[in-house]
């Protein structure tokens, strides 16, 4: 399954991205607003200044007079270190001030309203406030324009200061948002983790449907999970059914053939015929044994994935297996001797019986008649050992570990019907239980010892 990244991380990144966007957006807005506020402040002060000046306009002896009030300029110096320019003019005649100060672009229609404009003077950007007044000079009312201007250094520095503060706050906000989104992501995904935990808490073969309260978004996942478990359960059941069915279908006809062959053998006179019939019976036995082992192997495979461990008395396990093979051994006058210790193991009883039965069957098979097969159970160094010793020909000269490979037979097995799966089955079962199968030839080539080793529980 290819990984597509953690949902939690993606969610956090997404939320962080949104937070970053919002942070930048808010910073930009605040900076804009700050600049606007600073500009408005400057405008307000310029307006106050220009109004104060305009209020000193009077006429004297038919001439327009004015006296710049100290306050009009001191208020301009109060908020920033900007350069100040001013101009008082009637039409094109400049009464006082900086003559080449730019004329406001708007024609002043109504008196009293301060008009603002931005321009350039003396190499810098300036903000101008202009107000018009009508002054009665002589007989005519004379329109007088008073302009006060300031450079915008103060505005710029205030904006920069506030922008910096806004940036700092934005970053702080962003960091808080990121940590909150990480927290939110984690919290939102909690139901998912809880479901996962609930499923993993179950035993390996617990395929009951999940009944948990879950958010609506997870409902489809839950029902899919339940359907999957149902199908799994069904497939396991059908695997078991299949094996049972296979066993029955293979073995019943074989049984017929064998029985008929034995009957034929009884009534056969010809030695050749007898030989052939014996071979037939041997072939049937081999088929049956192979089939049996293949089915055992299949059982081991499907059960090993999902080991069901239950506490089992070793004496019960060994006893039942030995009892089952007793008649087989008796036929060859082989005595089965058991050395038992009381012990409990946590194993899959079906698989362990399978393993022991195969090893014991092997021992009986390769032992000459009138011998003893010993089954000795012992515990040592945290391991439980079931040692099956026979008095047969030993394992041969080949490498021992290959004997547990599928369908491998040793070099000492000539003339004996068997398939190589027996030891493979036993080894697979033991490996699934975190144990092992030890094989060794006894001293002087006087038999084999196959040990099933399990860790003590």
């Amino acid at each position, binding site marked *: 399954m290819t990984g597509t990244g953690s949902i939690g991380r993606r969610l956090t990144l997404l939320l962080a991205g949104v937070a970053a966007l919002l942070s930048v957006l808010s910073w930009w807005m605040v900076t804009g607003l700050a600049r606007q506020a600073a500009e408005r402040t400057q405008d307000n002060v310029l307006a106050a200044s220009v109004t104060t000046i305009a209020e000193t306009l009077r006429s004297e002896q038919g001439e327009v007079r004015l006296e710049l009030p100290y306050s009009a300029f*001191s208020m301009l110096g*109060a908020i920033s270190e900007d350069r100040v320019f001013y101009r008082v003019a009637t039409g094109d005649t400049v009464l006082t001030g900086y003559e080449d100060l730019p004329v406001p672009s708007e024609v002043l229609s109504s008196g009293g309203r301060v008009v603002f404009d931005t321009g350039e003077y003396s190499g810098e950007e300036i903000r101008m406030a202009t107000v018009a007044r009508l002054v009665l000079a002589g007989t005519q009312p004379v329109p007088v324009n008073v302009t006060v201007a300031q450079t915008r250094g103060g505005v710029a520095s205030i904006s920069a200061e506030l922008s910096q503060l806004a940036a700092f706050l934005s970053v702080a906000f962003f960091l808080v948002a990121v940590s909150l989104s990480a927290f939110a992501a984690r919290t939102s995904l909690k139901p998912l983790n809880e479901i996962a935990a609930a499923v993993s808490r179950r035993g390996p073969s617990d395929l009951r449907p999940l009944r948990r309260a879950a958010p609506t978004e997870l409902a489809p996942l839950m029902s899919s999970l339940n359907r999957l478990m149902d199908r799994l359960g069904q497939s396991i059941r059908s695997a078991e059914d299949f094996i049972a069915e296979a066993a029955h279908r293979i073995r019943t006809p074989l049984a017929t053939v064998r029985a008929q062959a034995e009957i034929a053998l009884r009534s056969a006179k010809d030695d050749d015929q007898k030989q052939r019939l014996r071979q037939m019976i041997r072939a049937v036995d081999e088929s049956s044994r192979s089939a049996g082992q293949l089915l055992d192997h299949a059982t081991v495979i499907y059960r090993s994935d999902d080991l069901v461990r239950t506490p089992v008395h070793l004496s019960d396990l060994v006893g039942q297996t030995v009892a089952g093979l007793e008649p087989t051994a008796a036929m060859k006058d082989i005595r089965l001797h058991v050395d038992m210790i009381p012990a409990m193991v946590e194993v899959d009883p079906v698989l362990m019986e399978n393993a022991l039965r195969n090893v014991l069957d092997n021992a009986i098979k390769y032992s000459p008649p009138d011998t003893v097969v010993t089954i000795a159970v012992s515990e040592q160094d945290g391991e439980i050992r079931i040692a099956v010793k026979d008095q047969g020909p030993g394992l041969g000269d080949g490498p021992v570990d290959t004997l547990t490979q599928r369908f491998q037979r040793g070099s000492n097995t000539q003339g004996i019907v068997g398939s190589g799966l027996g030891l493979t089955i036993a080894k697979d079962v033991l490996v699934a239980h975190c144990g092992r199968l030890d094989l060794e030839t006894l001293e002087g080539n006087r038999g084999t010892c196959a040990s099933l080793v399990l860790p003590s529980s």
Partner: protein
Amino acid sequence: MRLTCLALLLSFVATLASALEIEDHRLFPGTGDRMLKVISTADLEVFEPYLRTFQASQPSLSIDYTVVSSTELHRAIRSGAVFDLALSSAMDLQFQLANDGFAQSHRSETTSALPDWARWRDLIFAFTAEPAVVVLSTERFQGLDLPTTRQELVTLLREYPERFDGAVGTYDVRDSGLGYLFATQEARSTDAYWRLSEVMGRLNPQLYCCSGQMIDDVAEGRLALAYNVLGSYAAERLARDSGGQVQILGMQDFTNVILRSAIIPTTAQETAGAGAFIDMLARLGQREAPGTWPLPPLGQTGADNLVGFGPIRLGPALMVYLDPLNRRAFLTEWENALEQR
């Protein structure tokens, strides 16, 4: 090499002299061929120690020091005269130069350490805070109570018109930029100014262009009292004059404190030297103790018998009284007060 410099300088000064009304001039030669051209309102006697000290730290730099009146300095810079440094006590004129784009900016660690009110836009740098004081002749004030406020001074002048007739001196504000500054600031700040001016006007006041002459006349007994003298000059004269002829009086009701400032004109060529000089002045301006320097630092206002008043604010308001209309109105009133015949 030096001779050519000298020759060049003399010719330059000569041409300038025709355009500029120079009160004093001296060249302080250095070891190298760079020259710092300084135009200033401070008398050589007062300012020489500063020049010497600076040259000691930068021996390769020659200093050309020209003394002019504050109005003359203002006019010269406005007409584009080439100077590296312009030092003046007329804050308003300096401010206007800076505001109207005749100064270039300079920034250093030392200037950044100046207090806000001693600096404007990195164009103007104040390095002294000097009060306006009353200087009186001990001899001519014998038997009289020394006034502590303007009101007391007014009373005194009214009571003894015969003693003070023709013996009171002050700036002719029409000629002296500093005088004009003192007068306008005082008129704005206290109503006692016009009353005092009127009283003085009836006493046939002597009008001077500069502090120095006023103090000399007081010292020689020609004047009983000089009003609005620059405190530092007076103090300096007082130090020299051990005979106790001259006394400094600070008015308790109000005292004008001006900031002597420096600008680097846009026409400056030796900007590095100018910057270094300003740094030296700024450092001295920030000194704790007055020491032996002729001019006081920014932190104090001079002699101990003066109450500390805040200096005039270095800001656009200084331009108000420079406005021709305002100036005309003020001068009219001033003439009315002081030239009563």
